């Protein structure tokens, strides 16, 4: 019997009506580098998140220690807290229907046998490319993280499931110095497997960006056309829809999309799908963190809001089926409905054509502070650290330090002129390059 089943059994013995255990074992390799690899560390972590219900009273207790004594103590504490918790009138029960969808590309066997030396060599050759690219550029900071994890979920409805998954995250930053001017260039990529990381390509891109931006300047503010690079728009999709399409926010009145199912919330060229089954997706897996099978859920179809995302609790409360979107941001937290892979459907424009068709505007390559945006009000705020002026169909001078503001939901309704076909992801959000009209810029 595994730790998860053991924990469930202990809780039931202590008169819990129901129990659910989530056990995670993670092996993590994290390498930090600048010009050379600076630190190399490995971490082995374990954790148990135990949820119990006594009637309609619930609690969660977690521990990082997985032995019989500690598991027994966890069960005792969870039950003790549940006893004093006020009743949740909306509580029904834990997931009663486990299942697995056949998906692929979420486990990279290669990580099991990776030699430390191979990792270090690959990073060293990537950072060397930055110095070779231009003598004004040098690598200043980068992180590579390789994670292998094993997750088990079991509950008192006598069901259990187990999965193994991997992830690889790479980020690299170059800095350029010349004649007292300085600038940076960053790139990042998140994938499920080692082979997909474009180490060399990203290193060169970071160096190129750093050098080009030595002479970047702010520009005057005003309303303008903005062409947003795929990864940047993906990031915004995640910020504005990550929580607002989740049934949790909808039911609590926090989502501005509540009550809008079946109504147009975006222009007709916008179709957004959550798909937990797409091959090699960042959020792809056979079942969610409660053991529900993952699926493909239309969220926005040709501008019309179609569905929210559900976990077991929110689904039972709304009297619908879970969409398999239960996610725990840590084993110690209860699941929340969140996107698996959030995909903006591609259009037919080529990014180069978008630029060619633009008389005046800004091409946004990199932003910071976009997470300061407010998904409740729709207020979009991001500072462009790397952009280009677009003049008569061409990228001209580099631009930095200007703030994009506007209302994201209004931009989706009126301001999407064209959508590209070049998809990239920022974690679980996937988007092509997008051309927006009428965005306000605060500049010099």
């Amino acid at each position, binding site marked *: 019997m595994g730790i998860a089943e053991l924990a469930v059994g202990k809780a039931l013995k202590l008169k819990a009506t129901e129990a659910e255990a989530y056990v995670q074992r993670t092996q993590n390799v994290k390498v930090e580098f600048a010009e050379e690899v600076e630190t190399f560390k490995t971490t082995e972590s374990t954790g148990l998140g135990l949820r119990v219900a006594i009637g309609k009273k619930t609690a969660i207790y977690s521990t990082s220690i997985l032995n019989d004594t500690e598991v027994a103590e966890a069960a005792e504490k969870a039950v003790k807290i549940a006893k004093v918790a006020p009743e949740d009138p909306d509580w029904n029960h834990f997931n009663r229907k486990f299942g697995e969808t056949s998906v692929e590309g979420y486990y990279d066997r290669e990580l099991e046998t990776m030699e430390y030396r191979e990792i270090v060599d690959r990073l060293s050759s990537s950072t060397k490319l930055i110095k070779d690219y231009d003598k004004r550029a040098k690598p200043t900071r980068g*992180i590579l993280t390789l994670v292998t994890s094993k997750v088990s979920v079991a509950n008192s409805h006598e069901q259990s499931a187990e999965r193994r998954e991997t992830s690889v995250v790479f980020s690299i930053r170059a800095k350029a110095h010349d004649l007292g001017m300085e600038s940076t260039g960053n790139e990042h990529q998140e994938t499920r497997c080692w082979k997909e990381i474009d180490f060399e390509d990203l290193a060169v891109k970071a160096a190129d960006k750093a050098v080009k931006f030595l002479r970047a300047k702010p520009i005057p503010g005003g309303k303008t056309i903005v062409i947003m690079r795929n990864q940047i728009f993906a990031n915004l999709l995640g910020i504005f829809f990550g929580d607002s399409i989740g049934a949790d926010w909808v039911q609590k009145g926090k989502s501005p999309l509540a009550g809008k199912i079946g109504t147009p919330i975006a222009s007709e060229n916008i179709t957004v799908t959550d798909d937990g089954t797409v091959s090699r997706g960042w959020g792809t897996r056979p079942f969610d963190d409660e053991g529900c099978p993952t699926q493909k859920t239309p969220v926005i179809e040709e501008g019309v809001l179609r569905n929210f995302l559900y976990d077991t609790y929110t689904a039972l409360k709304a009297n619908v089926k879970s969409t398999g979107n239960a996610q725990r941001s840590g084993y110690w937290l209860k699941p929340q409905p969140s996107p698996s892979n959030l995909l903006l459907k591609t259009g037919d424009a080529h990014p180069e054509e978008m630029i060619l068709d633009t008389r005046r505007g800004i091409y946004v390559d990199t932003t910071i502070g976009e997470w300061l945006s407010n998904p409740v009000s729709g207020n979009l705020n991001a500072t462009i650290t790397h952009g280009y002026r677009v003049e008569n169909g061409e990228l001209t001078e580099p631009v930095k330090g200007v703030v994009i503001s506007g209302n994201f939901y209004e931009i989706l309704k009126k301001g999407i002129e064209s959508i590209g076909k070049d998809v990239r992801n920022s974690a679980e959000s996937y988007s092509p390059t997008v051309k927006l009209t009428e965005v306000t810029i605060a500049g010099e």
Partner: protein
Amino acid sequence: MKESEDTIHLERILDEALRRGVSYADVRFQSYDYESVSVENKVLESYSSRKLSGFGIRVFLNGAVGFASSSDLGHESLEKTLGNAIKAAKALKSKKLLFSDVKINESDAELHVKIDPVDISPEEKVSVVLDANKAAWVNDKIKSASTRLGLSKDYRWFASSEGARITVETTIVGLSHISVAQASGVMEWVPHSESMCAGFEFIKSKDWNSFATEISELAIEAVSSKTPPPGTYPVVVDPEIVGVLLHEAFGHASEGDLVSSGESVLSNRLNSPLASEHVTITDEGTVEGGFYCPFDDEGVKKDRTIIVEKGVLNSFIHDRESASKLGAKPTGNGRAQDFENLPIVRQTNYLMQRGDCEFEELIEDIDSGVYVRGRGSTGGEVEVGMGTFTFGVGPSKIIRNGELAETVRGVVISGSILETLKTVDAVGKDLTVKTSVFGGCGKSGQRASVGFGGPHIRVRRMTVGGR
């Protein structure tokens, strides 16, 4: 000191490491308890309790650093983890070891706590949160309210092959609240929290019902306010935003690792004037209202470091490595999120020192400006290489003809920190330092609890964004 069987085994692993040829080793054990009680819309959303414990071993071999950690304290795991750390060090190219000498400390530090939060019953904790949440529903413009109580107790044990033995125990408690208001189709949220390095006596000492009520009232006021027209204005900044701004836009740039890598905008600027003469900035291990940080995770004592003195850059903050690289003394700023992470250069309590102006004097000669406020702020981000910052601040006030006028919402401030600090032309005589049990500062994937603050200040030019 809480001498346990675990720590005796851990000390032995230091000897084993030396036997296996390392030039230095340290081991950190941690036991961390965290409790969080959340109420959303008058219903208990979750009561979660977390226990985390384990150890991490750092070794130096041929000038390279190796690190490994595990949450399994068994004998086999200790051996395996040491092996992993050595393997990691061997995978790196040998380089010259850079590690400053420090005073070897042996000390037990514990924050004085009157009421241990562990001794408070779950019922009492739930009722504090539930009552505050109910108080937030002041009228029907409030669409959502969530309230959270956070309690944490962090015990850290450090030992090195040089003979250092340090324990630090810190307790921190706090309450956070978010009110969401809606009026004529506009929604606005105001998040705010208060925390203190103290026991449950801090929770008992405050009226959390009025705390939540005030946040709701602010959300209602904000939702019917306008956003300011984007542009460049003179601004008066409140202590909370001064603290966040300094921490994010200046503090990070003063971190020795970012300075020595050349990544920081402050590299090579020691002893240069960087700010107006009104500006003095310090980093202090223990300060009223801030986070309790008497020693870092390399066993180095954290005293008061003067970063900027009357506008001139005086010092950076360091761990042992960055101090050595830059030929400075370690300042006790080598901090790790937990036992699973290596210490890196982090701020502790980073603050601007008080000046001599009354609040009225700060605003009286501003014809058209903004009073930028922290309550309800959503945080900030900075590009350290260029010193560019962006912060979403809370509902703020327009300053017109030397007086506070209407409230504005959705305010974002942005600028370059070096230009901003140069245009600080007046500093208030007040001083507020805050910390938080709920979040902390992120760097290289690690979070650390910090304290931040300062007085009210006046900045001559700042870019204000809005819609």
